[in-house]
């Protein structure tokens, strides 16, 4: 091999490059170029994941030079730190199954002429995400970041005949570029103070002093927060994620969001010196807000992919909540406690990638089989798509933080971190921790309600539309990646100790986190202590439940004595049971919609059409819309103001050459006076 055994980064990027070229060459043969593009992408990712695994096991960063330009002196180098490696593993866990799924999926949803473009862009996207994660200097990072944004926007606009897709891509571009603008400002300020473009020099924490440091923190939080889908920068996410083809949605929700999260870790929490306590509190606040609003909006959705997209906002919030708790603890010098919080956050980032990838791929299968994204038009799919249903329910259990699946383990750890936070922080500030704990509990219970709805209305009872009646199980090529992700969800839940000992390599590499603290209890369990002693072994919980199921089956079996089950029609309340009388998804989430109406501000319209008497309506129409609060009260005034300013500035753009020459003259004069004055 022409590269060092443990460093495959350049090799993987090369593979991406070759695959892109091959894909474009084969563009006229859609089936071949699809297979080449996605298998090639998977191969490249296998190599980066191998590098990442090596870094995580040895705890020794590997790096090298990407590109040198002698004339300008620009050297783009990369460094796979344990933190980068953790996120590279997240990329690997999701994008390999997504790539395999795409081979089967894309020919069904994308016109053949576009497969080459999607395949090539997919590779560009993965390569740039990998670059973002390993870049070790400002120019390389921003270049990769921008390319990643453009590639994503292109993929969102895959079905660009639809106005919705174009709008989503546009919104995504605008929001992302505002975010990138904040990042550029932040990075270049740091660079100019450090007189270096290298991350090694600008993230020492001693580069800028306090008032400016706060401004930089806010800039970076906003910049990365846009990508991470943090409220209030989230508005693009529920538009963009559903618009893309489902396998791309999976990649966006599971992986691209994590690029923003990586930035929050790398810069906001650990790049600007010891975090100030208010930074941590701000992160906790935004995290809790994202979590609760994300899940509430997810509950109210009737489009399965939008539901999943809002749930991504929720999980980003949980990740940020853990990170923020860690920052507050570091600010208070409680470094061994902070390890728990940061590890919980990292763990949840990995877990979210696994279950959200699974759920998006599952939703993609359902959308492909039925041709619609509306939950109210599904139903009864458990008989028609039994494997999809089984795999979806695993994802639903994992995301509802139910043991022994992975979501439970990271939620457990986050709650422990919040408990420890109360212990470790003095004064009234610590009240934030139990409040956050209560909100987290509410969030996960609402997530369970949301996914009972998503699974139940989609897969159970009678089909609600012609499309659902005629649906068929998706091909094995699309089921296998889901089966892989489902087993990852289970495995990550069963061996939290192992996961956390690997995450220990990451936390040990971060400044301000003591390396001695460990939360692993063997490979199978977690523990915290001694201040708040708690242990959990999810596999034991799982086995206990299994044993108890066996007892339940035995109890029923002993009494039944070989009698066979009689099948009868469901009681239809005196009439025939039809799909019309079934409970709908809208009805399912109605009580919560009513209870949280202060958040949703719903507008309801009930219309009864009666011919004879109002007491015997022929037809009742019900419409409910929830208000897009952030769009209406934050973004609409903002865009209106921007447009207004632009209108005013139109005066300057008179269209007359003389005027423009006049401007140049005035500018030249001002510059002369200013420079002359120095």
């Amino acid at each position: 091999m022409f590269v060092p055994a443990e460093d495959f980064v350049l090799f993987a990027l090369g593979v991406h490059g070759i695959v892109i070229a091959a894909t474009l060459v084969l563009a006229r043969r859609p089936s071949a170029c699809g297979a080449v593009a996605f298998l090639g992408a998977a191969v490249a990712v296998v190599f980066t994941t191998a590098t990442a695994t090596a870094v995580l096991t040895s705890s020794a960063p590997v790096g090298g030079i990407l590109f040198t330009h002698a004339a300008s002196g620009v050297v783009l180098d990369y460094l796979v730190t344990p933190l980068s490696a953790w996120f590279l593993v997240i990329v690997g866990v999701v994008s390999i199954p997504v790539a395999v799924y795409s081979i089967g999926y894309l020919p069904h949803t994308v016109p053949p002429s576009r497969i080459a473009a999607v395949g090539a862009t997919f590779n560009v996207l993965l390569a740039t995400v990998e670059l973002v994660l390993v870049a070790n200097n400002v120019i390389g990072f921003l270049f990769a970041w921008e390319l990643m944004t453009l590639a994503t926007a292109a993929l969102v606009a895959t079905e660009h005949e639809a106005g919705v897709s174009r709008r989503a891509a546009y919104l995504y571009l605008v929001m992302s570029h505002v975010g990138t603008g904040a990042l550029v400002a932040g990075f270049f300020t740091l660079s100019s103070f450090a007189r270096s473009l290298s991350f090694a020099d600008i993230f020492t924490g001693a580069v800028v002093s306090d008032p400016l440091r706060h401004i930089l923190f806010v800039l970076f939080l906003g910049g990365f927060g846009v990508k991470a889908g943090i409220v209030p920068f989230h508005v693009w996410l529920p538009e963009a994620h559903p618009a893309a083809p489902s396998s791309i949605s999976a990649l966006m929700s599971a992986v691209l969001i994590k690029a923003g999260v990586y930035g929050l870790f790398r810069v906001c929490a650990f790049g600007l010196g010891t975090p100030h306590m208010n930074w941590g509190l701000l992160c906790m606040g935004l995290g809790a807000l994202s979590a609760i609003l994300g899940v509430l909006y997810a509950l109210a959705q009737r489009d399965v992919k939008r539901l999943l997209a809002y749930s991504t906002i929720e999980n980003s919030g949980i990740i940020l909540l853990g990170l923020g708790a860690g920052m507050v603890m570091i600010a208070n010098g409680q470094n061994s406690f902070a390890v728990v919080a940061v590890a919980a956050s990292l763990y949840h980032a990995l877990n979210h990638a696994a279950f959200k990838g699974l759920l998006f791929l599952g939703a993609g299968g359902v959308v492909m089989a039925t041709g619609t994204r509306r939950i109210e038009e599904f139903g009864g799919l458990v008989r028609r798509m039994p494997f999809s249903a089984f795999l979806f329910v695993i994802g639903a259990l994992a995301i509802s933080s139910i043991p022994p699946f992975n979501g439970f383990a990271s939620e457990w750890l986050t709650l422990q971190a919040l408990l420890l936070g109360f212990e470790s922080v003095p004064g009234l500030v610590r009240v934030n921790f139990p409040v956050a704990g209560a909100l987290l509990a509410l969030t996960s219970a609402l997530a369970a309600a949301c996914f009972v709805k998503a699974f139940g209305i989609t897969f159970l009872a009678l089909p609600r539309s012609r499309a659902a009646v005629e649906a068929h199980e998706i091909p094995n090529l699309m089921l296998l990646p889901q089966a892989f992700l489902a087993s990852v969800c289970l495995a990550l839940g069963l061996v939290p100790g192992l996961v956390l000992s690997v995450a220990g390599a990451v936390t040990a590499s971060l400044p301000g986190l003591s390396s001695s603290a460990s939360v692993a209890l063997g490979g199978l369990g977690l523990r915290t202590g001694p201040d708040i002693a708690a242990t959990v072994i999810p596999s034991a919980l799982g086995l206990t439940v299994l044993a108890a199921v066996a007892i339940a089956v035995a109890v029923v079996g002993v009494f039944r004595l070989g009698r066979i089950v009689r099948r009868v029609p469901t009681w239809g309340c005196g009439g025939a049971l039809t799909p019309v009388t079934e409970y709908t998804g809208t009805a399912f989430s109605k009580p919560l919609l009513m209870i949280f109406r202060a958040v949703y501000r719903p507008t309801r319209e009930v219309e009864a059409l009666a011919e004879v008497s109002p007491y015997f309506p022929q037809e009742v129409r019900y419409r409910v819309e929830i208000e897009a609060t952030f769009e209406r009260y934050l973004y609409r005034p903002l865009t209106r103001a921007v447009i207004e300013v632009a209108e005013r500035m139109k005066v300057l753009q008179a269209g007359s050459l003389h005027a423009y020459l006049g401007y140049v003259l005035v500018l030249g004069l001002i510059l002369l006076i200013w420079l002359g004055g120095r």
Partner: protein
Amino acid sequence: MEQALVIAAALLQGLGMLAVAPLLRGLIKKMKAALQTRQGPPLLQVYYDLAKLLRKEPVRSETASWVYVAGPRLYFAAGLAATTLVPVLVAAAPLETAGGVIGLVGILALGRFALATAALDTGSPFGGMGGSREMTIAALAEPALMLGLFTAALASGSLNLGAVVRHSLELGNSFHPSDVFALAGLFVVLIAETGRIPVDNPATHLELTMIHEAMVLEYAGPDLALVEWASAVKELLYITLLIDLFIPVGIASAIAPGPLAVAAGAWAAKVFVFAVVITLVESTNAKLRLFRVPELVAVALGLGFLALAIRFL
């Protein structure tokens, strides 16, 4: 050897709770009847009902799938498995390291998820209505529950119930004024989670007011028996949880016949007191409208905050 002992203890405690749980329901029914100057069903009626249901022919909907079959089994299993995580007679839970109180909450969430999902499987509108309401109320009760558990954990330095109990035994008189508020808050959670008046009426089959009953309306025979039995276990479990957190006095600190007998007596007496309180609450209150339940839960949340504030601020 030690593992075998742990498994035996878990099995014994689980089956023991399974055996006595229906008695609690019977007791509450009997006491309620007494308050209404009725004779009421025999104390053991719940057992007779379970036996009758288990012997019946299993009848299932044509529309239902495996999810419908899995629902009651998982619900039952979750209730049973959760009993191994609480100390009942001995100041240690059989499977204490497997998961403290968060593990318990997680396992009960599994049962609820399974049953609420299964409720949607028959296509009957009642199932959906019940499942929706059950998940709603569970979600609302969750923050108050977590806050109560937070306070208890901070006071005793552990989230493992065995350690919580041992901590208060060590202190001797562990009573703290904040306990009153925390207990009251968690008692509201108990009412909400076990479907008692004023949140839900276990005796009603009036379509607009049912919650839990609507969710399991389609179940019959052995499947229904599992659900009923598990609900009884869950109720006993929540009561035992509150006993462990607030009034563990009398619990045996070693496995010996004498202390165990005392512990059994003390536990039974405490459960009886809870049963009396639940009976009184059920008999003197009317069921709340569904949309008034958030106010009740908000009270629980407020009590939880008050307890936390009194204790630590």
